[in-house]
């Protein structure tokens, strides 16, 4: 019970609370916040440095996890086992047989290199390489420029003559 005769009645009180309440502009809040940022009182917007650190750590973790997952997926999705073509190695040619009566410093017999065309059954054709495909998992990498050829016996004789 009120003792002060000047106390408001319930009706007056309600009227008092219903008085207009002007508010400052929204810009004022931004001005105040900006000013306090400039003076170093405030730091980040609605994120404490601690929260910011947690956020950055979480993002970095996600990036690392995603990249690891992608790398793992790429290796498992490799379409076929690596197939490498390794050309058959050819054994070294037979040593040149020199006749016993050949003088030690004999001049090379030039005509010997000239063989009558009638003795040659055909123009020596360059044999086509016969690659052999070998499936291997070894990381052997043969340069494609190296090509070895299979040579048959007649060709060998011919080669000896050329020497």
């Amino acid at each position, binding site marked *: 019970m009120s003792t002060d005769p000047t106390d*408001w009645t319930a009706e007056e009180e309600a009227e*008092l609370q219903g008085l207009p309440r002007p508010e400052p502009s929204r810009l004022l*809040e931004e001005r105040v916040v900006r000013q306090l940022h400039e003076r170093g009182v*405030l730091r980040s917007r609605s994120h*404490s440095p601690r929260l910011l650190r947690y956020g950055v750590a979480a993002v970095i973790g996600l990036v690392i996890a995603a990249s690891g997952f992608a790398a793992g997926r790429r290796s498992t999705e490799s379409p076929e086992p690596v197939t490498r073509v390794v050309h058959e190695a050819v054994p070294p040619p037979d040593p040149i047989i020199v006749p016993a009566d050949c003088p030690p410093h004999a001049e090379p017999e030039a005509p010997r290199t000239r063989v009558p065309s009638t003795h040659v059954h055909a123009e020596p054709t360059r044999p086509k390489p016969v690659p052999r495909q070998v499936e291997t998992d070894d990381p052997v990498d043969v340069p494609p420029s190296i090509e070895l050829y299979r040579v048959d016996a007649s060709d060998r004789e011919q080669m000896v003559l050329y020497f």
Partner: protein
Amino acid sequence: MSEPVDKGPADQTLVERVLVDGDEGAFRTLYRRHTGPVYRFVLGKVGHDAREAEELVQEAWYRAAAALEGFEWRSRFRTWLFSIAHNCVRERFRKNGRHTTEDPQDHEIVRTPEPLEGIDLERAIESLADGYRTVLLLHDVEGFTHAEIAEILGVAEGTSRSQLVRARRAVRRMLRPKEESNVD
């Protein structure tokens, strides 16, 4: 009459966040909780010049933030902020050669001497002299105690009490002239 219900964190928690982390979110919560009443208080003081009132409120917040570390919580944050705003107003008036009616004992209670018939409460309060109006609004609308009003305005607590009684009577007289003339 009472402080508006606000279920956010306590002022002291928010202030600590501002001080420790420079937490902008905490500051905005504080700002939104208290700026409206401070603005209305200042607006009444400067004769409803909204631009000037905003300048003063901005200055008050800046001073409060700068002095936040030294605030010892012997009064409510709200009371402290109002007193800072009041000082800002006084300094502005002094600088501009204006004067406030801080001590209503020396002034008329009502700026318009003759009671006005048929006016509403808002106009009646508006007609009060500055000091009386301030006490009435701080006590009856913003919910401050006399001790708090004394702290804000820098007057004795008894002065606040007597001003309130006179202000209420003056308002009643304006609203219901016949009733109040019988009481007096």
